[in-house]
């Protein structure tokens, strides 16, 4: 009987063609503003694909996604003098196979994620001679299969789910899986047991602000923002005009067919900032076929309230990936993979 009802449900769903909207949508932002980039000159040419940036006090830490030697580079800020590079790329036990993201809390607390090794590492850099040491390596529970982003909540880790059965996983400080929570908020697809393709298409970037308990999740494809408030335990899903990630399934893989969505998110004390691209994969494929090297990155920074309401849209004169927001000084520092001067600032 259950099977019959399930088949009937699936049939009805497929017959309706389009689903009615479940989650609220924003169409436009109440405020729009154009921002011009100011380049920060570097004293060295290090980068191939600068992907993430975080500034703490007088230091800027930048992660290069495709660097040939080291993934992480520490600079003096704002002079941008190179201090030290670490996270050597390689396949020896001490090396990193890949780097997905990092959390820079202080010089003795830099957390990096290696997805291929399924390992989170804490690095320490001495303030005197900037000696880099690996303080601890945490092997993540292999039941999660793959970890493409992480954040720290108290002493636990929160990691987006790669299997599609849940939205994210919580592990303890030793990497053991504690529990899996939430569901992928898709209006079109039902997450089945083998829905890793759905999870791949819904690959998301997360940021958690411990001061206000807000966890923001943005999708790399499509235009979906999720806001979890860990204090009052509320969850809100907001769809943008481009909707949820469009994809097709090929041999169990989620192949993007829609648009490139968000590439970074940051939760500050007042707002949620997210870098948005908006370029369609069809357009990207056309550029590849014609041998054109298009601008890679997002031209927009969307600002949302801590409850997910659209506040402002910044249109940039550069295409960027990662951001660091300083609301007190009114500065957004960003990384641009297309330029030889890859570190830029925007006054907001």
């Amino acid at each position, binding site marked *: 009987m259950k099977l019959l009802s399930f088949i009937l449900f699936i049939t009805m769903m497929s017959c309706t063609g389009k689903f009615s909207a479940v989650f609220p949508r924003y169409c436009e932002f109440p405020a729009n503003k154009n921002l011009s980039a100011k380049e920060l000159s570097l004293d060295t040419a290090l980068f191939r*694909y600068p992907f993430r940036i975080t500034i703490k006090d007088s230091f800027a830490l930048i992660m290069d*996604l495709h660097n040939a030697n080291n993934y992480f580079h520490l600079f003096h800020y704002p002079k941008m003098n190179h201090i030290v590079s670490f996270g050597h790329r390689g396949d020896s036990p001490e090396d990193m196979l890949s780097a997905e993201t990092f959390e820079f809390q202080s010089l003795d607390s830099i957390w990096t994620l290696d997805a291929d090794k399924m390992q989170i590492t804490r690095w320490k850099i001495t303030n005197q001679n900037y000696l880099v040491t690996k303080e601890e390596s945490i092997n993540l529970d292999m039941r999660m299969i793959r970890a493409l982003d992480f954040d720290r909540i108290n002493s636990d880790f929160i990691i987006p789910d790669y299997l599609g059965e849940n939205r994210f996983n919580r592990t303890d400080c030793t990497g053991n899986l504690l529990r899996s929570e939430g569901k992928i908020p898709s209006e079109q697809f039902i997450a089945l047991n083998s829905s890793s393709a759905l999870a791949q298409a819904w690959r998301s970037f997360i940021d958690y602000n411990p001061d206000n308990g807000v966890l923001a999740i943005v999708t790399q494809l499509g235009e979906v923002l999720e806001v979890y408030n860990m204090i009052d335990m509320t969850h809100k899903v907001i769809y943008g005009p481009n909707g949820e990630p469009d994809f*097709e399934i090929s041999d*169990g*893989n989620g192949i*993007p067919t829609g648009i490139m969505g968000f590439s970074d998110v940051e939760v500050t004390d007042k707002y949620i900032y997210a870098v948005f691209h908006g370029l369609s994969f069809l357009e*990207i*494929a056309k550029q*590849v076929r014609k041998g054109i090297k298009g601008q890679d990155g997002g031209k927009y920074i969307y600002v949302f309230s801590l409850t997910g309401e659209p506040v402002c849209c910044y249109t940039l004169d550069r295409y960027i990936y990662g951001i660091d927001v300083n609301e007190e000084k009114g500065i957004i520092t960003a990384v641009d993979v297309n330029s030889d001067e890859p570190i830029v600032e925007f006054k907001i």
Partner: protein
Amino acid sequence: MSFFMSLNLSLKSQRFCYSPYFVNCIFESVNLFVKYYMMRKTLKKIMLVVIAATIISVINFENPKQFSSLTLNNIEALASGEGEPNIYCIGTGSIDCEGRKVLTKYNPLSLDYTE
């Protein structure tokens, strides 16, 4: 099989050659000889066909057909089996594809990406 049977019959008929039915015997022998001769012709044809087929197969074995790259790609895709994903990971970027970070990934069989 019928050939050997007819041959046996012809031998039997030779034994009857000294019988009073001598004339009939001659006729029967001639008849069988004609049949045997006709079968030899059929046998020759069969042999010719077998030899021709052998020669053609040997020639084909020595000169394999040159496939186009597209055909080879299709063969590779078919031979890759069900476990191996049939996707292309293109360029340098941030999309996770087979453990690499690429600009885009797509299904080469998708109609959306064919011109």
